């Protein structure tokens, strides 16, 4: 306490010294001017340049990112479109093939039905023809038989009646 009191009382701490003020001012101003020339100018210039460089790099990175995102989005869109397209094509192919199959089977069935019907008709015709031929044959045979009978038995009327009744019998039996 006493020491600090003496220091304060000594007063020389606060005594003005114009020489020191003069030298401080001169020294400081000279240092300031020289440093401005040799140090602060280049340093601050370089710092500002670097700041600008970093800013532009960041800007460029951002724009590159935006660009790549846009490209990615576009690619995704294209992919989705291609997917839809392929789906559509597959679906259409399936539909077409289904239709084609049903068409073909239908056609084949109708064709088969037609053929069956045709065959039936033919069989019927053949049968009728065969019957006709048979009938003619039978008639001829009967006539020949009748001729013989008639030659043997000249009673034509009775003979005829007999023949008729025979034919009648034949036809009924046939049917």
């Amino acid at each position, binding site marked *: 306490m006493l020491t600090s009191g003496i*220091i304060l009382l000594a007063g020389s701490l606060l005594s003005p010294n114009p020489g020191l003020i003069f030298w401080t001012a001169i020294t*400081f101003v000279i240092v*300031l001017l020289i440093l401005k020339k*040799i140090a*602060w100018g280049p340093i601050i210039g370089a710092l500002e340049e670097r700041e600008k460089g970093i800013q532009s790099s960041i800007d460029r990175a951002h724009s590159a990112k935006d660009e790549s995102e846009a490209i990615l989005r576009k690619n995704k869109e294209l992919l989705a479109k291609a997917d839809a397209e392929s789906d559509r094509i597959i679906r259409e192919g399936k539909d077409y093939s289904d239709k084609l199959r049903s068409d073909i089977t239908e056609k084949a069935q109708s064709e088969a039905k037609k053929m069956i019907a045709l065959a039936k008709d033919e069989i019927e015709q053949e049968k009728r023809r065969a019957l006709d031929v048979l009938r003619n044959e039978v008639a001829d045979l009967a006539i020949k038989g009748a001729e013989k009978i008639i030659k043997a038995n000249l009673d034509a009327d009775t003979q005829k009646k007999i023949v008729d009744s025979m034919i009648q019998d034949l036809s009924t039996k046939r049917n």
Partner: protein
Amino acid sequence: MKRVNVIQAKAFLKVVALLAPLLLNANGLAFALPENASGVPQKTATAVAAPAPVASPAVAVPAPAAAPEEEKAGDVIMHHILDNNVFAFEPFGSVNLPRIVVGGFDISITKHVVMLWVVSAILLVVFSVVGSKYKKMTPRTAPKGLVNAMEALVEFIRTDVAKANIGVGYEKYLVYLLTVFFFILLCNLLGLVPYGATATGNINVTLTLATFTFFITQVAALKAHGVKGYLAHLTGGTHPALWIIMIPIEFIGLFTKPVALTIRLFANMTAGHIVILSLIFISFILKSYIVAVAMSVPFSIFIYLLELFVAFLQAFIFTMLSALFIGLASAHEGHEEHEAGVAHH
């Protein structure tokens, strides 16, 4: 002690490391003694020596014997703090500095002037190296070593001090702020070096630096508001009836800022040195090795480390407040708007 030296060299080295500052200061005391206290008889020193280790007999020491003893310590401290015309390298001798008187003004080269020149020389050398590196540098190359260290400080002053406090147009004041920061920082640090002196612990130096801030602040205010705006600012924007009170208050307010800057830096730098020296002198006043080892050395080392921090802190605060004053003076808004803006931030 020699036996210990043989057995435990390491422990001895530790003790020497602890006692080294004390031994140096013992030399300082011896140096100061013939100059300041030559009239003090040798008898009083021995008289104090005997009762000092015990506290209660120290009261019994006669007052005329105690006073010169403490005056001696005070004188030595003052010798360290104050400016003088001798640059002392204490165990080796001293250099007498030239006295120059021009037109009745004493502009002799004192110890603090030499320190200012040493600071200037170091600054110029360091920054000429750094500046030349920057001239060669392209934006793509990264700084390293000393350049990187200086860049960190320069960038800090540029963005966090100048840009943050002044805002638009801070570039004009950047040169001053950077110079004042490094100048004060180096002055503060050189005060902590052996044989160094703290030029910023001299009120004349800090007053000069604060005067620069004052003038720059006033020029900034005049540029920003014009002569009319500057004078209007002195009225505080109040009714003309209050001008008779407001103008003196605002006028004094102009000067309180640089005065606060002056005293803050000067007092901080001086106080730290006085505390360190006082702590060391306690052991001499009490003439006790126990006090020296247990208190003076550890505490003065602690204060020394604190002083290292304060050296940076005070350089930063001076620069920061200079920037703040310039920013306040050149603020384009009115007082209320500015305060609202500050409150928002």
